[in-house]
């Protein structure tokens, strides 16, 4: 059962140079598609190809696996076969200005229509006033005015004549008219009236009453005549304006005769101009400048009176080839579905159809919209808005206030636009599963998942493909070509990134970083070809840049501030290994784990857990230890110990079960009273049978202990005990490999706790014989005897009278 150190070659896999049949990456062809992502590629191809509702795509995977680039490349390819999107513009709804009309027009037409409408307004502003100043119009208007003036005067003259015939007169009063008796052109005074004979007075009174009645009738008639006059003038104006407007709009109608939407709109414009021709007569609201980019007076565009005839172009597809592919980098609610903006006028916020702003859904309509899922989901209301649009297949522009029914002020409700779009969400895997679990609509709307691999198998084929990938990155990034050794080194680094000697990382971004930095170092060295040493230097330099915390940690160990022994042997004490993940930097470091035992009720106390510094997985590992002890050593008697386990000098919390084997070794050492070699650090989790199981971060852990030992001086006794299952993950640094090859550092792979304890104590673990006994002097026998002793003592305690003492 003796465990021997792993051979140096087993500590890191080297790339087989014979598989790289080139001198530099310049000779390599670019891959048609990303290697190792066949599942995702199939899904993307399917998702883009299928034209059914709900078949939107979610590309999931770790950041930097090339999802975005691949999605865009596929979409660009697919979009180039599609047709250019329709133009979209909003125009005034003359029947209901609160509900602007959307016009979807062939590519390029919206901008032309906008220019035509601007020109039309300019033309009408010149033509309408000219018409109203014409002799013909003045004459026709004069005729109407005169007719009513005459009618007016005639009726008053008749009244005056009737009055005069009876010595009466119409007199203006503060509020209207009155009938007065007159003599010699003056109203009869009351005194003179009194002097008149009674019959004459009565006659005057009677005449006045009659004339007053006639006057009342006449005055009642006046408003009706005035109304009639206004209507006649309005009719005249309509006729005149219709003539000039019709003339101009007919030309536009002819131009757009194939587009019924525009023809209908022009009809509405014509009716509106006729109804509101006054606007074309009034003085401009602002001073006109000589001209603008359109060659039209700027007032025709800016004058508020004519905004109603503008065309607000949201999507202009002039010259567009293929379907649109839009990536919305900031998928806020408003950036997605658009907004109705407002202007402050006289202290109030006002809006109209000209202030409708399109969103990325508008721009991508008829094509593809790519969104970052995390950004989308962290923007208030954006996710709901996207789902609503996809479900209803239309884009409805509402302010968040309207959407939530929080605002009841009058605003615009633009006509919804039909939506035909394929949305591609790109996000991390956890996000996909989280949304799947929490949003029941998610799968209805995003039926296709493209799951991007984090790594790919490292074999002969993939070695060549990976080399091509490296060549492609170098080409895309305008880097110097890499020679064969540099590529091999980069491939090995790919395996290290994958933390697996049989895999290659698909984190393209990380790989690209190394290649960029290697290119830099090659340039610094005056080389035009990147060599293996440049790649090595890039890896080292990158690590060095972010290695400060790791350095400080080791420094504290060297100074004795953190107690770590790397030689000698101690009872109940073992060097565990942990991994710290700080941003882009991951490093391993040793931690002292100690165990103490005494008589008790079968409890193994995890001090970390007691003080809430231990996570649930760590606690689970410790509880497994209890179960292991009970199952192996105390199947027919109570487990009568109280043991405590602690990560010494750990103040930041412990999680994971990778130290559970180390904790068990410490516990066994304490029970058996056997010292553990401090020159060997331990990692690995353990199950109830005592099997050592794989853990993560094995490379970092080994290197972490190696660095501590190396700084103190390698003795040849030092090493790390790892689970046998982790040997396939070993991609250790070259200096570690070199030390192992020289016999100055060792990596041991163990399958069971027994193998490990033997190595750590130098004492055989021992197996039960035919009688079920462990051999004398073995670790297991010592542990079992100790536990039996504790059980016996406990039994004796139990039989003592209350308050008694052990004798």
């Amino acid at each position: 059962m003796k465990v021997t150190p792993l051979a140096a070659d087993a500590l890191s896999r080297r790339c087989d140079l014979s598989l790289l049949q080139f001198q530099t990456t310049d000779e390599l062809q670019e891959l048609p598609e990303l290697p190792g992502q066949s599942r995702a590629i199939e899904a993307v191809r399917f998702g883009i190809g299928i034209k059914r509702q709900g078949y939107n795509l979610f590309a999931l995977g770790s950041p930097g696996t090339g999802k975005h680039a691949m999605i865009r490349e596929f979409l660009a390819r697919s979009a180039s076969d599609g047709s250019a999107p329709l133009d979209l513009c909003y125009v005034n709804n003359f029947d209901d200005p609160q509900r602007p009309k959307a016009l979807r027009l062939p590519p390029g037409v919206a901008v032309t229509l906008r220019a035509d409408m601007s020109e039309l307004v300019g033309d009408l502003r010149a033509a309408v006033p000219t018409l109203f100043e014409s002799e013909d119009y003045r004459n026709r208007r004069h005729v109407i005015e005169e007719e009513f003036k005459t009618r007016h005067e005639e009726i008053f003259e008749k009244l005056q004549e009737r009055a005069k015939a009876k010595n009466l007169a119409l007199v203006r009063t503060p509020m209207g008219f009155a009938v007065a008796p007159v003599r010699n052109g003056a109203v009869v005074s009351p005194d003179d009236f009194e002097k008149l004979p009674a019959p004459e007075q009565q006659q005057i009174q009677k005449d006045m009453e009659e004339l007053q009645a006639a006057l009342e009738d006449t005055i009642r008639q006046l408003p009706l005549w005035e109304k009639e006059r206004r209507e006649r003038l309005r009719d005249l104006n309509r006729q005149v304006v219709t003539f000039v407007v019709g003339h101009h709009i007919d030309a536009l109608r002819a131009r757009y005769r194939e587009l019924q939407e525009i023809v209908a709109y022009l009809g509405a414009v014509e009716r509106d101009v006729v109804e509101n021709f006054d606007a074309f007569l009034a003085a401009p609201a602002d001073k006109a400048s000589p001209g603008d980019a359109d060659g039209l007076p700027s007032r025709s565009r800016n004058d508020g009176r004519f905004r109603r005839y503008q065309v607000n172009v949201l999507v202009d597809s002039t010259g567009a080839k293929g379907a649109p592919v839009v990536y919305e980098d900031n998928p806020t609610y408003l950036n997605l579905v658009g907004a109705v903006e407002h202007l402050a006028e006289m202290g109030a916020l006002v809006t109209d159809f000209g202030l409708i702003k399109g969103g990325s859904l508008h721009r991508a309509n008829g094509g593809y919209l790519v969104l970052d899922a995390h950004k989308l989901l962290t923007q208030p209301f954006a996710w709901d808005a996207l789902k609503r649009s996809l479900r209803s297949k239309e884009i409805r522009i509402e302010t968040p206030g309207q959407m939530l029914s929080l605002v009841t002020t009058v605003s615009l409700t633009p006509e919804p636009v039909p939506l035909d779009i394929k949305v591609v969400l790109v996000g991390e895997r956890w996000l996909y599963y989280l949304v799947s679990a929490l949003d029941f609509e998610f799968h209805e709307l995003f039926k296709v998942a493209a799951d991007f691999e984090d790594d790919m198998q490292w074999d002969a084929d993939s070695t060549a493909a990976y080399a091509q990938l490296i060549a492609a990155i170098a080409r895309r990034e305008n880097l110097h070509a890499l020679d064969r050794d540099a590529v091999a080194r980069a491939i090995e680094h790919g395996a290290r990134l994958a933390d697996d000697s049989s895999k290659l990382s698909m984190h393209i971004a990380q790989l690209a970083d190394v290649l960029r930095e290697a290119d830099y170092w090659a340039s610094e060295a005056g080389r035009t070809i990147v060599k293996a040493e440049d790649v090595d230097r890039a890896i080292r330099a990158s690590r060095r840049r972010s290695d400060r915390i790791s350095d400080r940690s080791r420094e504290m160990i060297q100074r004795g501030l953190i107690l770590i022994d790397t030689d000698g042997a101690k009872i109940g004490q073992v060097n565990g290994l942990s991994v710290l993940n700080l941003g882009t930097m991951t490093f391993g470091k040793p931690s002292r784990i100690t165990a103490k035992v005494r008589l008790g009720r079968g409890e193994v106390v995890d001090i970390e857990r007691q003080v809430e510094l231990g996570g649930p997985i760590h606690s689970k590992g410790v509880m497994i230890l209890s179960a292991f002890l009970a199952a192996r050593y105390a199947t027919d008697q109570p487990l009568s110990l109280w043991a405590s386990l602690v990560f010494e000098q750990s103040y930041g919390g412990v999680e994971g079960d990778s130290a559970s084997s180390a904790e068990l070794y410490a516990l066994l050492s304490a029970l058996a009273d056997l010292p553990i070699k401090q020159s060997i650090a331990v990692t690995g989790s353990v199950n109830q049978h005592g099997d050592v199981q794989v853990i993560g971060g094995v490379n970092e852990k080994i290197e972490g202990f190696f660095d501590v030992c190396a700084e103190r001086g390698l003795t040849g006794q030092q090493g790390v005990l790892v689970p046998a299952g982790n040997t396939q993950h070993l991609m250790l640094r070259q200096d570690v490999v070199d030390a192992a090859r020289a016999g100055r550092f060792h990596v041991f792979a163990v399958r069971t706790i027994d193998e490990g304890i033997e190595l750590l104590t130098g004492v055989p673990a021992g197996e039960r014989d035919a009688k079920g006994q462990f051999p004398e002097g073995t670790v297991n026998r010592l542990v079992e005897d100790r536990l039996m002793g504790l059980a016996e003592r406990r039994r004796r305690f139990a039989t003592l009278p209350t308050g008694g003492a052990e004798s």
Partner: protein
Amino acid sequence: LSETTSPSDYRRILVALDASRESQAALEAAARLAARLEAELLGLFVEDVDLLNLAALPFSREVPLLSRTSHILQPEQVERELKSRAAMARRALAEIAAAFHVDWSFRIARGRVETELVAAAKDADLVALGKGTRPLSGHVYLGSTGRAIAARTIRSVLFATMTSGSADAAVAAVYSEDRRSGEALALAARLTKHDGRPLAVFVLGDSPSALARLEAGAREELQSMGVSGSVQRVNGTGLAGLLRAVQTTSISLLVVGANAPPSDTDLALETLVEQSACSILLVRG
């Protein structure tokens, strides 16, 4: 005073006030004129004795324009109304005079409107009153008061309109064979010179040679006054040509020499006042 005054010596401008919109227009136009000519405003409010007499009759009724039924005219109510209107007129005069920095006085007279105005005109150089406006229809007309002032005084008269365009619009003068043409042109020139408004001169003549001569005369006078202006020939001495010119030019005030008292131009004056949108200043005497 019975002698007439040259426009350049206008010192007293009588304004007929009755607190109506028309009289407010007259007040504004008169105040603007007074400011340019450094003249004084004489406000006159006439308590119409005809109206008071009528109200004193027990059976007199008023037919309001804005109501469907008539009501009895109460003397106390009319008195109150007249007092109130006089106060409003005085206040308006004070405000506008202050705005234009002109001296002013205000007087209330009781009597017949035409009689009192004609009497008061004797102490003034110019009488300003609003053009009449027909109730509801808004048609402009000369009005009995305007007709009386034109007929029974020899003073210059300003018929102000409520729609005389912007204050920046041109001032126009009629230049013809009339002996007062020079004075009209001089007055118009003085008004425009003061505030920088454009000056338009309508030359009226009955023959091409007369027109040419008059145009040359007008230009010479403008030059001598150091004023620039557009000179436009109007064919014929008739009213139609002048009206067309007035209607197609954006002007706020037309200054024209006229007979006093008017003879056969009586009807022409009425037509000119009614069919031109601008204010009309008749330079008479």
